[in-house]
């Protein structure tokens, strides 16, 4: 054994001497020899027999990645996707909600018929079941539209062009161009976005991408932003334009998120995560005819069902907690009323109110139940409630002292605050570091507090 380790040592010593003699450009020389050989082989076996009449790929690349048209096209594509998602999800969402609430009535009757006590019926049907029903009817239709469109763009080869366009900006931020792909995934679900950061090789750049993924609006937050944009912003315009105005508002919030991502990436890479951007191949693959079957499989099975399943797992207990808070009394008030009055001063300081803050705390496991929690608290009801008519909702908010500022602050808080519990857990798993996991929550929270407090203060001055 000793003898063989001596042989190994001698060999490695020879290797070191030879390496010194060869110099430091060994890698380039090896690569050069391989390129040369590849060219030789290809000259023998590959023949170009002619040129296609029109090179569509090159033409499309010139437009999609052009200095002037690249960004407008990207923003237009984003608007188109959001518009289709918002408009398309409306009707199926309503139908699903109708169905679930019809079923709820029957469940309640059924529970009573088999002699279940009121608190058990309330806990299971008005708590757990309602939480699930809300999440499914609010999330499923937009996801079933958004994910296939996103996957379609991925499949035809547009997303690598987006990466290419954004690469310069990321380079300026000291981050990696592939971060744009992880951001795209984050639009669907931040946990999925954080996982996809694995495609970034440099640990420093991967960490930047993970820590900033939260600023991409996820599926749980789209409905909140869309609702506020429709009820508060678009409602003051001509109904014919409300769809466009709502979309533009949502796009504006999204773009703020993108801007914050760049700013925070730059901040991180010039303070705690210093370093030079790494180099990588950014290949523009040929445009492909989309394979519809594959798109449906990947977007519906791998993404939609997966994200929805996880949302349901977190929404069910959250629904139960909301029901308990509203139904357990301490003295003459419910626990919920106590919590709201205690949180109210902080909420006011941030341009919102106690109800909204409570909703954000209850919704740590899943962002999608924020709006239902709020509505339930405002109605002082004992359960989450579905209001079909947007007009009714606006009236409810106005009656509870909402202003334009409240809506703006809430949208900003929703965009910035902190990642949901699932994403936080994913961040811990991916980074393996408690420090970075805490930082990933603290950094957005501080930012959200600063931004919302400033907007609230500004609006107080202006009035």
């Amino acid at each position, binding site marked *: 054994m000793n003898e063989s380790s001596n042989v190994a040592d001698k060999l490695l010593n*020879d290797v070191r001497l030879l390496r010194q003699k060869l110099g430091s450009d060994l890698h380039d020389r090896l690569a050069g020899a*391989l390129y040369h*050989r590849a060219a030789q082989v290809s000259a023998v*076996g590959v023949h170009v027999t002619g040129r296609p009449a029109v090179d569509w790929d090159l033409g499309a690349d010139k437009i999609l990645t052009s200095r002037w048209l690249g960004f407008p096209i990207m923003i237009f594509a984003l608007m188109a996707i959001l518009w289709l998602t918002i408009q398309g999800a409306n009707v199926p969402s309503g139908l699903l909600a109708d169905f679930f609430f019809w079923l709820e009535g029957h469940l309640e009757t059924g529970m009573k018929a088999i002699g279940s006590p009121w608190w058990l019926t309330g806990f299971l049907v008005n708590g757990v079941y309602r939480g699930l029903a809300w999440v499914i009817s609010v999330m499923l239709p937009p996801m079933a539209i958004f994910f296939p469109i996103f996957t379609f763009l991925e499949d035809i080869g547009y997303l690598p062009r987006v990466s290419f366009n954004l690469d310069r900006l990321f380079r300026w931020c000291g981050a990696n161009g592939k971060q744009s792909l992880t951001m795209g995934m984050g639009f669907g679900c931040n946990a999925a976005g954080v996982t996809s950061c694995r495609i970034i090789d440099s640990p420093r750049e991967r960490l930047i991408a993970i820590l900033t993924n939260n600023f991409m609006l996820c599926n749980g937050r789209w409905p909140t932003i869309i609702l506020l944009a429709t009820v508060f912003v678009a409602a003051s315009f001509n109904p014919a334009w409300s769809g466009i105005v709502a979309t533009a508002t949502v796009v504006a919030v999204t773009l703020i998120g993108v801007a914050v991502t760049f700013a925070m990436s730059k901040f991180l890479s010039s303070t705690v995560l210093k370093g030079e951007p790494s180099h990588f191949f950014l290949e523009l693959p040929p445009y492909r005819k989309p394979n519809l079957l594959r798109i449906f499989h990947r977007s519906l099975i791998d993404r939609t069902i997966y994200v929805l399943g996880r949302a349901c797992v977190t929404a069910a207990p959250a629904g139960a907690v909301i029901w308990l808070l509203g139904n357990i009394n301490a003295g003459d008030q419910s626990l919920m009323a106590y919590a709201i009055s205690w949180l109210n001063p902080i909420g006011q300081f941030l341009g919102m109110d106690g109800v909204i803050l409570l909703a954000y705390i209850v919704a740590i496991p899943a962002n999608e139940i924020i709006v239902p929690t709020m509505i339930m608290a405002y109605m002082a009801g004992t359960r989450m409630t579905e209001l079909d008519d947007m007009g009714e909702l606006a009236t409810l908010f106005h009656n509870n002292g909402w202003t334009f500022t409240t809506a703006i602050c809430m949208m900003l808080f929703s965009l910035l605050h902190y990642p949901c519990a699932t994403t936080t857990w994913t961040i811990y798993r991916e980074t393996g570091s408690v420090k970075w996991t805490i930082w990933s929550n603290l950094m957005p929270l501080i930012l959200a507090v600063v931004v919302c407090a400033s907007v609230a203060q500004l609006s107080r001055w202006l009035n």
Partner: protein
Amino acid sequence: MGNCNSCSTGCSDTAPNRTALVQIGGVYDYVVALAGNPNTGKSTVFNYLTGLHQHTGNWPGKTVARAEGFFTQADTRYKLIDLPGTYSLMTRSVDEEIARDFILFGRPDCTVVVCDATVLERSLHLVLQIMEITNRVVVCANLIDEANRKMIALEARALEAELGVPVVPTSARRGHGMDHLLQHIHEVATGAALPQPRRARLDDEIESAIGLLVPQLLQMIPNLPCPRWVAMRLLAGDERMEQALRSGELAEFSKDPAQELVLV
């Protein structure tokens, strides 16, 4: 060497690292690795070959996704392992490290390199590197339909003669050429065909450095299948390779008489 894989316990003389890499599970006769550049339709080839017989996980100790699946060809059962898509095997990136370690230490019975036929020259870079590690290579020139549309013609026979390994033009999306690919995998994995790769000639100084190291390596590990590649990696300062040399992991190759000697 593949036949001993069908027992679930593993034999005492298999390298422990290989067991970890191949993750013995399921019943199969041969292991096939699937390598290739990103965006060459590698996943399509993988899905075509394995259908629904696949599952995913992570590479041992790494946060890189790993897919593996099974297929049968001519009554022989194959386990197919999808390697991370890479352009090369020479850098420190995690993906490249996983791919090169698997091809070397995992000792697949056949390595299929999926290439983009529309830009074959670029893909050949990876093919040439894999040919340094193993003889058992099959080149799958995928997206041949797109290449034809772009008026690019491949002469498979000429490429085969030039490279010394089988070259199969395919269009995995349409299923064209896939039977042919399966046939070649079968021949190479079972040993019915033994490819003789024609390797790239490096510059004289590097060749002479390799020439000094190879005899020493072969003296230490008589059956080492790819002394040239090991020498290249050592010269490049690959710590994993140094460690494998010291720990005797590389020496495991000499205990495996079925692994043929690569003639330099």
